[in-house]
């Protein structure tokens, strides 16, 4: 093997650092979901637990928000995809001057802050509702409808970009050929252009749905009195840090990873090189089929769910609680011994043991006492106010 010179290693090193920045926070968040500590943290590690997932399953607000989000997502897809497609087709058919003008208008919603879009949507429909003297139950004031309108404003632009990059590769002589062979312009559209756009419609749908699901800035205005998955999550985060939020992240990351793996497998499976490899190896062909991969991942997920449901960490948590109580006892005694002294001497820390820690509930004065974000405040399950 050749020795690598330091300069050729720099890009690799840089990429590693960069991806550490990308994934580090996520990995740490995932780990905190399995720590029984009531404050999301990696260290000190208390017990391995899956209880936070259980807590999610009984979180009605979050589930209701999720339901709304899915509904809104479907609505957004149904409206934004036809609009984005129409916009891309229009752009591909008009002259260069009009195209530049239209493109500027179409791209604007991506650049306008989401807050502004949400706000203007809310005001506009409120105004229209007032104009028609519509009752408050009508859709002009309905969070779900308003959110769909607000999100479509910019998600249509995203999907338009997807369609635009596909339509640029469309060979317009195909439409002409169809016309020449007697198709009406509408038939040519349905039988030639639409099938060509089909893959882009698929990816734009996924993109639009996910963008809708994760949107916050616009939704927080337009949702009015209702809620979505994201707004519930946001108020949870602002209300108090809680490892069950990490558990949400674990679930979403798992879904994303499964999606990414299946997507990548499908890509590899469909390459020419791989088709060659598996041509006369039926076992390998079945084993690497994306369907098989999906099935295996499905089974693994199921196993994880069963594990989460059955894992019992109560023994360990009870023990930790016991230790804490003992510690608290000890500290209180210590405190009563030297009342005048305010700070706990640092040397007492190490003998707390690996599972110990200055965990919530202790009366140990904090080195940065009045910080509302310090874990002391949160660990006692007193909500932190933002």
């Amino acid at each position, binding site marked *: 093997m050749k020795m690598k010179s330091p300069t050729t290693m720099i890009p690799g090193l*840089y*990429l590693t650092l960069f991806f550490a920045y990308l994934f580090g*926070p*996520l990995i*740490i*968040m995932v780990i905190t979901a399995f720590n029984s500590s009531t*404050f*999301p*943290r*990696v*260290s000190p590690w208390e017990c391995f637990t899956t209880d936070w997932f259980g807590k999610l399953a009984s979180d009605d607000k979050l589930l209701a928000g999720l339901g709304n989000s899915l509904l809104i997502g479907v609505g957004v897809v149904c409206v934004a995809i*036809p609009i984005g497609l*129409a*916009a891309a*087709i*229009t752009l591909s*058919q008009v002259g260069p001057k009009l195209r530049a003008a239209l493109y*500027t*208008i179409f791209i604007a*919603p991506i*650049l*306008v*802050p989401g*807050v*502004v879009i949400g*706000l*203007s*949507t809310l*005001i*506009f429909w409120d*105004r229209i509702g*007032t104009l028609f003297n519509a009752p408050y139950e009508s859709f002009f004031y309905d969070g779900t409808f308003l959110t769909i*309108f607000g999100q479509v*404003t910019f998600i*249509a632009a*995203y999907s338009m*970009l997807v369609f635009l990059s596909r339509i640029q590769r469309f060979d317009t002589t195909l439409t002409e050929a169809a016309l020449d062979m007697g198709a*009406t*312009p*509408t038939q040519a*559209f349905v039988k030639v252009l639409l099938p060509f756009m089909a893959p882009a419609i698929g990816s734009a749908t996924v993109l639009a749905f996910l963008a809708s699901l*994760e949107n*916050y*800035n616009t939704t*927080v205005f337009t949702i009015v009195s209702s809620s979505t998955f*994201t707004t519930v999550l*946001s108020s949870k*985060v*602002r209300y108090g840090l809680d490892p069950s*939020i990490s558990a949400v*992240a674990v679930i*979403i990351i798992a879904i*994303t*990873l499964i999606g*990414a793996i299946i997507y990548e497998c499908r890509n590899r499976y469909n390459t020419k090189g791989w088709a060659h490899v598996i041509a006369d190896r039926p076992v390998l062909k079945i084993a690497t089929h994306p369907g098989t991969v999906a099935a295996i991942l499905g089974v693994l997920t199921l196993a994880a769910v069963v594990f989460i449901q059955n894992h019992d960490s109560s023994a360990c948590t009870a023990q930790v609680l016991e230790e804490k109580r003992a510690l608290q006892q000890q500290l209180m005694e210590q405190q009563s011994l030297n009342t005048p002294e305010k700070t706990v001497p640092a040397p007492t820390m190490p003998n707390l043991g690996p599972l110990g820690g200055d965990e919530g509930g202790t009366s140990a004065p904090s080195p*940065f006492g009045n910080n*509302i*974000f*310090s874990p002391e405040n949160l660990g006692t399950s007193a909500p932190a106010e*933002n």
Partner: protein
Amino acid sequence: MRDLFYDLVRRNGMAVCIYLMLAVSIWVFLLIILPQLTMLDYSFRFNLPPAKIGGPEDVYTLEQYRYFFQGSGASDGINTLDIGILFKTLLSAVFVTIFDLIICYPVAFVLAKSSTGAKARLLVLALIVPYWINEILRAFAFRILFGATGVINETGMGIGLWDTPIDFIREDVALYAGLAYAYILLMIFPLYNAIESLDRNQIEAARDMGANWWQVHAKVVIPYAKPGIASGMTMVFMLTSGALAAPQILGGPSNLWFTQLVYQWFNSGGNWPRGSAYAMVLLIVCIALVLLVMRLFKVSIGEIRQ
């Protein structure tokens, strides 16, 4: 206009043409232009109870904008608080944008020019995956990371860099790190697309003519990737200055982001006209800034792609 209509009908047939026109007009007028105009109109009105809307008191006024500049006090006072927040927001957004550009440029370059085939695809996938995860959760991750007992503090203290936990939240470090993280992808992809289309031979030719690596970038790659750099910077800047979730979760208690002001006027303040005026201020200042920079860099808005 008539010609355009006939041309579209001729090419697509009546049914499809009606669909195209209808969909585009609904989008442009009902979703984009009219709401913005309504908001503009709102920002020039008094905050009246519903009963008085349309009544004699419902007249146009500059009051909401006056408030932004002068505050509630005397007529010659200056609303230093809100103006200060606007400046801080814009400045921070510029800072975050530049930071993103600096860390993303090498990644985009390596991805575009040194990786090929499956490896490049995998790296791109690895870039995208974190972005399927909710914005709120990403901010939450930084909250954990930078907390008083978070990994950063524990490590820092563990290796003896500092000995009492640093309050990264109050210092806004967590906020900047979280914001920079939030829009990395929108910087990388325009850069990547721009650099990828650069012919390798151009770089090699420059090398061949004696340029060192720094000159290659300064004289060949960066000028070529200028539209990509401009569109990446525009996107990141606009999204950062318009961000709401990250400042709400990661911002220090006394440090507000301008969008939070808008949010406050709207929700807790219950003053829609003033919220509108603040939103207009944000929108206009941001667009003006972007146009100015684009003029400086000599790129047009048509070159902005995702």
